[in-house]
């Protein structure tokens, strides 16, 4: 059992929680995730380790409530426990002194970027961070990011914060203005795809963090397989980060939609059981 030490809401449909998991915290590196199962009948879902505290033995998870499990997770309170947490899993992000790095985050993907940003900064890199959201109140951890970025650009669809527009516009300007060694992007598939397409003609190395459906997360089932440069790779052990210029995004998107019907069924049953009002379940990313 893993105890939830703190929990708070960060934005509509986005929660943050700090969990007591000393062994996971001790080994967590930027880019790692955990797989958790809330209770005996629960599904195993992957969540990125958004931050970790070696001394206190805690990890921080940020999650967006999109379906049954994440909404159920949203109902937990400080002091409750999560039945199973396994990790840290996945390859850590390769951290070294690159020079100038641009980090592009969208929606909940920004959470994943934070530990990467921290590590890159510790490795003496110059960092530009571009965070995108639909609207101001969906932006999370802006202050934390500011502390580690040489330059922080916020973009919103409606212009309620930062510049109005898409992250790709800000990225294009950055690439044209300075010499960028590497772009790391985490967010909705369409955004990562757009970023990869944008950087390709500039020949800038681009790392994307993929989020296929996973089951156990230890390389034993193949559920998380993705197509990278025509090779099949398992995101949980070979990734989740891959070269954005090689990813077959269309296939990933197809596979993510595979259980749509069952996900809806499960979510609706959950709403009925918890007698909750049907809130809008639209994606905020």
């Amino acid at each position, binding site marked *: 059992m893993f105890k939830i030490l703190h929990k708070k809401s960060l934005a509509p449909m986005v929660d943050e929680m700090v969990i007591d998991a000393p062994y996971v915290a001790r080994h967590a590196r930027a880019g790692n995730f955990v797989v958790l*199962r809330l209770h005996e009948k629960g599904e195993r879902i992957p969540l990125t380790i958004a931050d970790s505290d070696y001394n206190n033995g805690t990890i921080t998870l940020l999650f967006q409530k999109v379906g049954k499990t994440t909404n159920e997770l949203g109902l937990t309170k400080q002091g409750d426990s999560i039945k199973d947490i396994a990790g840290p899993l996945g390859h850590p992000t390769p951290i070294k002194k690159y020079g100038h790095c641009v980090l592009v985050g969208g929606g909940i993907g920004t959470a994943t970027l934070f530990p990467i940003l921290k590590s890159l900064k510790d490795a003496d890199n110059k960092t530009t961070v571009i965070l995108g959201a639909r609207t101001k109140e969906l932006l999370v951890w802006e202050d934390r990011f500011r502390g580690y970025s040489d330059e922080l650009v916020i973009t919103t669809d409606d212009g309620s914060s930062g510049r109005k527009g898409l992250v790709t516009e800000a990225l294009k300007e950055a690439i044209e203005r300075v010499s960028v060694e590497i772009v790391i992007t985490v967010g909705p598939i369409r955004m990562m795809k757009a970023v990869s397409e944008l950087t390709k003609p500039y020949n800038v190395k681009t790392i994307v963090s993929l989020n296929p459906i996973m*089951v156990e997360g230890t390389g*034993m089932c193949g*559920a998380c397989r993705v197509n990278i440069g025509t090779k*099949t790779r398992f995101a949980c*052990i070979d990734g989740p980060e891959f070269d954005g210029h090689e990813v077959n995004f269309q296939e990933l998107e197809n596979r993510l939609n595979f259980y749509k019907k069952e996900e809806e069924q499960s979510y609706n049953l959950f709403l009925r059981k918890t007698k909750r009002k049907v809130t809008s379940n639209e994606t905020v990313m």
Partner: protein
Amino acid sequence: MKKCLLVTRHKSLVTVFKMRFRNPEKRKNDFKEVSLGLTERQAVKEAGRCLQCKKPHCVAGCPVEIDIPKFISFVKEKDYLGGLRKIREFNMLPAICGRVCPQENQCQGQCILGKKKRPVSIGALERFVADYELTSEKTEIPEIIPPNGHKAAVIGSGPAGLTVAADLAKLGYDITVFEALHEPGGVLTYGIPEFRLPKKIIRKEIEFVKNLGVKIVLNWVVGRTQTVEELFKDGFKAMFIGVGAGSPKYLGIPGENLNNVYFASEFLTRVNLMKAHKFPVYDTPVKKARSVAVIGGGNVAMDSARTALRLGAEKVYIVYRRTEHELPSRHEEVENAKEEGIEFLFLSNPKEIIGDDKAYVKELRCDKMVLCEPDASGRRRPECSGEEFTLDVDQVIMAIGQTSNPILVRSIGGLNLWGEGYIKVDHDGRTNLKGIFAGGDITTGAATVISAMGAGKRAARAIDDYIMGRTVGAIHELPLQ
């Protein structure tokens, strides 16, 4: 060698003892156990057939060398718990082995009676005494062993790991088993379906191992949650690696990543570990299909096919590139699958999975094969006949084999490996690294429950010798079985 195996197997096709099985029409709709085992009367009668050979061949066929005639003599005397106690001197998981061992190639395949008539049904008798304890509630509590003050770690809770843990605990070691998943048992838990090996049987046998004082820590991915070096620092004097070979292989044919193409490992894990057949009561879903093609001919293929049937498929094919004689699966499961209406397409080799405009499986295209003349190794290879055919299916399950579990192996520097990341060991499970032992599928490639247990037994002895300082840990290069 291969040839004689085929002969015994083939012979056993006609001479296998008929246990009681549930009606195929009924059982194919649920996940309850298919085989009902022997009645007491049948068991005693079957035990009476054993000749109590002075030099029992059957024992040589059992990888853990159970004293088979002895345990059978207890059954004959109706002292079932006595029989069980005898088995447990050699094997901690009798209810499991009695159900899943490929007996026709092992103990029963060697039984002297099999030369002329039907061999003694050793597996069924083993299962009978183990189940007797379960139903009679007369649980045998192992005696408490005085601790010897040494700690050893076991990584992976499959049959190999559980065997090492039990054997060392019986010698007084303080044993901790680390398991990556949220349930112990390895393939027994996440791979082999309920209708063949009920989970409560596994739980019960694991309970027995725990009663010996073994601690099992779940959600512990060694190499990630804790490294092997850290385990040594924590005071573990030696460790056994039994992480299995669960990582799926794939054919590399076009269409493998279409929606509704599963690797058997995922399909079976969803159902067995996550209980997806009970969705939405359980949260993990699995896709039910109308018409399913399962590619492969081993136990994993049979299990996948019969699981798909139980999820509600109208039609299930097994697509196998050789012939019935070469099917590597346990014979009993092939018979069971046929009775349940699974259709076998032999000499058929998949070449492409075709999808519809939404990237869902629509058809499977296969080559029709012929067996050519035996090559130097005596093996007849399948070759394309030039003909092809197309199956109308909406789901494809790949069950063509597994390979080494990568996480731990990748985390240890300097470990000698062979093939696709398997650990190189000597006869007793010693790796090239001091204090590190290994056994089971991670050293041999996908094999059997009982061979994993046999490896565990040898490794436990070697670990005891190592910790007690009775050996110099030199590795002998050994041809792998």
